[in-house]
């Protein structure tokens, strides 16, 4: 069972991707640091009463979204889950808009219409999640279906959690993608708990093993290693673009905080949290880069300054006008499809269309 990884890998010892240049490896660290810093800042704003509702973060899971999103090309499409902030950052959403989103401001990605990480910037090729999980597995499958019908070399990717594997849409999407052999990547973010429910109450068989039953590849990856996540996703994307069909990537990780800000997580044994703390994904990537002579402290300082600026900008941005509450329920113009997003991996810089490495 992939759900019990007995030996935490030491920093720097995990297999590295031969497809990453130094600048890429810094980018991965940068995305994770920015995610963690922004979420910590948002938590502070929440405690100050500036973030309405509750607050959800992905502390300790940064490598899952950073590594996977980094392998996606500009023309690929992403359906992003709530603990995957790094994916938005990699696609090009600015920190100020994210903080404004958390605070329900008019300049947030949903302009105050939805909260938290329930957003996706369609101009960057992303669709935001809904709370009914894992609905976006089918949406991503449908995107991939369109790509295949049109003969395009592109793929779709979505994240979902261990709890999601119990729902019908997981089955419908896995089956549909397998039957039609679609270019879609399913990233199962196994963070040990669905709210308070542990894995042994969620499934009897490790879900990665189900992939074979649907006729495609399932791989288990150390979800706390951004480079391993990148490499698994890059390989899955190659397979998808070459007509090899879907891949289920099970990213094994740990939800280090409660389900949301109000959750004290008393149902999680302290030893489990401590064990996983040794495998922090940011520590691991920093260790690698320090060995390569990268000035990690300078990067941290740069990111902190960026977050400070973003906070200032977000706090200065207006709340939405109540008179607009009923606007935009329907589209009244042309239906515009998703546009391309940022794709910083150096492997795309050399490809002419961004569609292959």
């Amino acid at each position: 069972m992939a759900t019990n990884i007995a030996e935490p890998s030491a920093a720097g010892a995990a297999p590295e991707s031969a497809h990453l240049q130094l600048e890429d490896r810094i980018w991965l660290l940068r995305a994770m640091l920015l995610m963690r810093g922004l979420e910590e800042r948002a938590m502070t704003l929440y405690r100050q009463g500036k973030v309405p509702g509750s607050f959800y973060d992905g502390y300790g899971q940064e490598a899952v979204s950073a590594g996977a999103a980094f392998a996606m090309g500009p023309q690929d499409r992403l359906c992003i889950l709530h603990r995957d902030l790094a994916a938005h950052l990699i696609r090009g959403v600015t920190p100020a808009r994210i903080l404004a989103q958390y605070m329900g401001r008019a300049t947030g990605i949903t302009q105050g219409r939805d909260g938290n990480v329930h957003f996706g910037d369609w101009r960057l090729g992303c669709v935001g999640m809904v709370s009914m999980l894992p609905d976006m597995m089918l949406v991503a499958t449908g995107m991939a279906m369109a790509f295949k019908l049109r003969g395009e070399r592109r793929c779709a990717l979505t994240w979902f959690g261990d709890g999601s594997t119990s729902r019908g849409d997981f089955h419908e999407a896995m089956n549909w993608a397998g039957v039609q052999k679609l270019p879609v990547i399913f990233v199962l973010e196994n963070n040990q708990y669905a709210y308070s429910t542990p894995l042994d109450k969620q499934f009897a068989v490790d879900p990665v093993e189900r992939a074979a039953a649907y006729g495609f590849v399932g791989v288990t990856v150390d979800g706390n290693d951004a480079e391993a996540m990148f490499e698994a996703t890059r390989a899955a994307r190659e397979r998808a673009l070459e007509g090899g069909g879907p891949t289920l990537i099970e990213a094994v990780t740990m939800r280090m905080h409660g389900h949301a800000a109000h959750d004290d997580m008393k149902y999680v044994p302290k030893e489990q949290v401590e064990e996983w703390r040794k495998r922090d994904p940011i520590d691991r990537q920093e260790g690698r880069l320090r060995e390569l002579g990268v000035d990690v402290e300078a990067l941290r300082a740069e990111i902190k300054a960026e977050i400070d600026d973003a906070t200032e900008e977000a706090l200065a941005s207006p709340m939405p006008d109540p008179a607009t509450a009923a606007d935009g329920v329907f589209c009244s113009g042309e239906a515009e499809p998703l546009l391309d997003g940022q794709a910083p991996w150096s492997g795309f810089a050399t490809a002419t269309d961004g569609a292959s490495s």
Partner: protein
Amino acid sequence: MSTLTYLQAISSALRDELRADERVLVMGEDIGVFGGAFKVTDGFVDEFGTDRVMDTPLAESGIIGTAIGAAVVGMRPVCEMQFSDFISCGFDQLVNVAGKMHYRQGLAVPITVRLPSGGGFSGGPFHSQNPEAWFMHSPGIKVVAPSTAEDAKGLLHTAIHDPNPVCFMEHKHLYRRIKGEVPEGVFETPLTARVARSGSDLVVIAYGAMVHTALEATEDIDGASVEVLDLRSLVPLDEDAILDSVERCSKVVIVDEANSMCAAGAQVAALIAERGFESLDGPVVRVATPDVPIPFSPPLEQAVLPSVERVKEACRELLAY
């Protein structure tokens, strides 16, 4: 112009759209090689191939969910629910993903969901429902319900061209029973009500199959001048046309084939109570299916569905008020 059945008109609209717009694909259970449970897409595979006339897995959430995904990357999917009842299995995708997408994220979801609905032929509790009100109550989804062959084609074109999710309620009992002159080619029917017969003593407001029940019931009620207003579109609801008829006729009977509670007709009654009260010369009268599952056995089914006789009786009583 050619004379088409209601079903042929729907087929004609789909065929014309597939010919005119390469972004259009039709998808559903058994619609490809078999041509659909009601043969709406009979022969389509030969002309358009199995990619654009897609036999899907038996998965209604999958049909709606993948259609949403295809739509947001530029396709114009038209989904067929084999029976409208089965949309309950795709409800979440339609209501929570498609319906709220534009409001939340500014992203349009141009999908059409064809929902063969209605009873009258012993379909029983799972093949006879009229679920339109579920979607009227869900922001972000348009709902249309044609009663004539011409509107079946025109409204389907309108639905497919619309940048929003549209539920197209097609009444199974009209498929082969109703015929009419239908213009050739692509044309759009506006999302407004239609006066099916003008009158001045009483108006019967209905949509879908109940328009025909209303017309038959009011053909001759002791010489009274009875208007029949065919709503055609439930979201958006043509409030002006409803209030205009009420103002001219002063007496209103509203007919739903759907279960009575919170039905489309209940919304129409509420509208009239709020904004047409001064025009009324009698209580707003509703005729609808009582709040029971649609039973299988003919005498039971006929006991619950609004009949010509029930509508006639309701009109007669109101005219005498």
